[in-house]
């Protein structure tokens, strides 16, 4: 125990410094992408100004910025509606996806029966499915959740099944030699092995979830970015559509980053060496 204390004391400030360094590093990593993006926006502005494009065909970035300032107060309600649908739909996709993955992985018959159906379900476009769902379950939150969940569960199922299959057979044998039950095997080896795969699927699902919600709102909704776009289109406010596109992109990125951070927290061993490089 005596040896434990000094090593802890040493590591605390070091960890703080590394965290700082990591964010500094991240800023550098994305700097080129940001520069490119700024250059493209600049070119766009120039293009519109020089050619004097009609604002109802292609507004300039500066006009979009003005639209944001002008109509920005309308956005929070729409953002909240869309974000709620996306997040709850994502949670439903995660729960359903994991359940299906466990069933498919543990019962060979279920694999043969369910996999083709799951793959087929992905061939039906969400935009076709959404109106049907409106008819069946109404235009409330439920129909949006179903659309988001249907878009998101597929990558989660596929990558979680792969994750479960990637579990080291020898590790399973080892815990079995210790007298482990099937539940122990699942708890100690199979589930932890599947965590990185699950999060890989969840990241893809997160990136698509906002789009899923917008598509569902597009068909029918009282609030949300999808309906905001429909209304803007009806009044030829192309600049507002671009504002919505920007918000959708930011929302998708925020969800993606949130899942990424969650993955780091849930699988700390994956990142142990990254942080420990300047350590022992």
């Amino acid at each position, binding site marked *: 125990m005596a040896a434990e204390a000094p*090593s802890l004391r040493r590591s605390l400030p070091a960890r703080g410094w590394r965290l700082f360094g990591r964010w500094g590093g991240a800023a550098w990593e994305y700097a080129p992408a940001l520069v490119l993006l700024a250059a493209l926006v600049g070119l766009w502005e120039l293009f519109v100004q020089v050619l004097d494009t009609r604002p109802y065909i292609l507004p300039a970035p500066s006009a979009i910025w003005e639209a944001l300032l002008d109509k920005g107060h309308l956005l929070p309600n729409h953002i909240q509606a869309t974000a709620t649908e996306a997040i709850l739909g994502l949670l439903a996709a995660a729960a359903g996806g994991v359940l299906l993955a466990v069933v498919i992985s543990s019962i060979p018959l279920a694999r043969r029966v369910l996999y083709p159906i799951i793959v087929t379900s992905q061939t039906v476009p969400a935009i076709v499915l959404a109106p049907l769902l409106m008819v069946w379950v109404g235009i409330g939150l439920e129909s949006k959740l179903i659309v988001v969940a249907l878009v998101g569960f597929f990558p989660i199922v596929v990558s979680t099944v792969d994750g479960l299959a990637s579990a080291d057979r*020898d590790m399973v044998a*080892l815990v079995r030699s210790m007298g482990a039950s099937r539940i122990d095997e699942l708890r100690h080896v199979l589930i932890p092995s599947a965590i990185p795969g699950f999060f890989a699927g969840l990241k893809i699902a997160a990136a698509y979830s906002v789009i899923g919600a917008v598509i569902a709102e597009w068909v029918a909704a009282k609030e949300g970015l999808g309906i905001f776009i429909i209304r803007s289109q009806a009044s030829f406010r192309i600049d507002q559509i671009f504002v919505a596109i920007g918000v959708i992109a930011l929302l998708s990125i925020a969800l993606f980053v949130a899942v990424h951070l969650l993955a780091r927290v849930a699988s700390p061993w994956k990142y*142990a*060496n990254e942080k420990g490089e300047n350590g022992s």
Partner: protein
Amino acid sequence: MLEAAVAIRGLRHTFPGDRPVEVLDGVDLEAAPGAFVSLVGPSGCGKSTLLQVLAGLLVPDAGESLIEGRSTVGEPGLAAYMPQKDLLLPWRKAIGNAVLGAEIAGVGKEAAREQAMALLERFGLTGFESAWPSQLSGGMRQRLALLRTFLVPRHLLLLDEPFGALDAITRREMHQWLQEVWATDARTVLFVTHDVEEALILSDVVYVMTPRPARMAARFEVDYPRPRRPEIVTDPAFVADKARLLAALDAPTQRQAGVPTPPPRWDRLRACSEKPADEL
């Protein structure tokens, strides 16, 4: 007489397939309680298969495999098994890996943790209890896997080439260390190796196996006084015994060259036990 810690009689096994591989061809083995017994044999002769049968992971075609009188066939969990690979769970910190077997065997989490902490120093892992396996050196990983095996509350340890992956210097240290640990532990050890010297330094009894399909070629009783220092390997008596053991190991290979199978050399090779202790 005490019941044998391990009793194997007429064990046969063939791995099925397009080209069936006959691994065990009537293997017999006995280990007294508290004895350190080594199994030496050429690579791929079936030593690991034998341990897997004892670990309850493999159902043999024929024969008996008993631990303290209980059959291990289809009955894992009777022995503490350490496979060739360390198989540390990457998602558990060092201490979590150490207590895995104890936890599965039903030892309380807190009690197991206390036991592990108490043994940490003896296993050279002090201060590393909260390191991830990927942050440990090869020797430390091996010692951690051994600690995990020691903490499984069983009377018999099955160790499959635990030092096979270590360099010669580390391995020498580990021999000294394992003797110390074992001396205070009083458990039966079945130790698989293809290193004759290692077997002689550590064991009370050494079994020599023939190439596949394996049978027992010879059995040595090793009566050198303990503790055995590393210098013992240069002792003329040790060298002579090593030569006998190697001869036993080499003899059956002639069988493959078309030479008729020699009779089992069971009693011819008890040389070490015949020697008075002061000769060393």
